[in-house]
């Protein structure tokens, strides 16, 4: 899951080396946190959240096999 999301996100930004994806996996759920270069958050969020919502949909589809709930958030610098 982490590798999948990381691969996609790296294709959405100009500074792929600053992409960091963390995965926290519990018994029934998985949380994914994505951080990118400060000035590139907009690229992974998108207009009206279009991009981040698409990422959530893909993460859910990938998590469906393991029957897990998946949450995905973009972590901005202040929250890190």
């Amino acid at each position, binding site marked *: 899951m982490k590798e999948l999301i990381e691969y996609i996100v790296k294709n959405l930004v100009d500074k792929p080396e600053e992409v960091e994806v963390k995965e926290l996996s519990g018994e029934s759920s998985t949380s994914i946190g994505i951080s990118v270069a400060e000035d590139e958050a907009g690229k992974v969020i998108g207009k009206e959240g279009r991009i981040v919502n698409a990422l959530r949909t893909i993460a859910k589809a990938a998590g469906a*096999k393991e029957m897990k709930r998946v949450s995905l958030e973009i972590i901005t610098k202040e929250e890190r």
Partner: protein
Amino acid sequence: MDKVTFKAGNLEEAIEGAAQILGVSKDEIEHKVVSEGKAGVLGIIGGKDIEIEAWKKISPEARGQEIMQEILNYMGLLAVAEAKTGEDREVIVDIKGEDLGQIIGKDGATIDALQVLISAALSRAYGGRIRTYVDAGGYREKQKQAIERLALSAAKDVAASGQEKVLPPMSAGERRIVHMALKDDPKITTHSEGMGRDRRLVISPR
């Protein structure tokens, strides 16, 4: 994308060297400078080589196929992506294989998400919007035909009754299909109303 790094005395030499390693002419590669060189005394002593990273130029179509295939592999699905360029210079990625239901998702949610992401990735990589369609096992084509049927029958009703008709909420791509299907009908006109997910197409008598 396969990348090579190459060091040389100046940028031109570095590009030529990298192109040689990649086995193509220097016009067929792209590069990024990793570290700037420094001219030494007399241009030789104590100078530092310039270092570049270089890769073969690749078409949006080939890149779209590559990204889609990687995603399928990461998702552990037995499916193959194939891309071509459409009449309108749009990139069309088609997925063939098993487990297509998982790729399409409920009401096409997953395939729509893949389309959004690949379109964004290609638009970023090539600078400027690149319209991208992702299809799996003819799903979009079937959906397109269903929408066209709906549009034509609604247009017929409007023309017969003289009353305008509001279609159910649709995505931008779906509304485009309706506009295209009805653009040559002299008896009616189409326009969209509402915002975001609630945006609907209205068919009115002309």
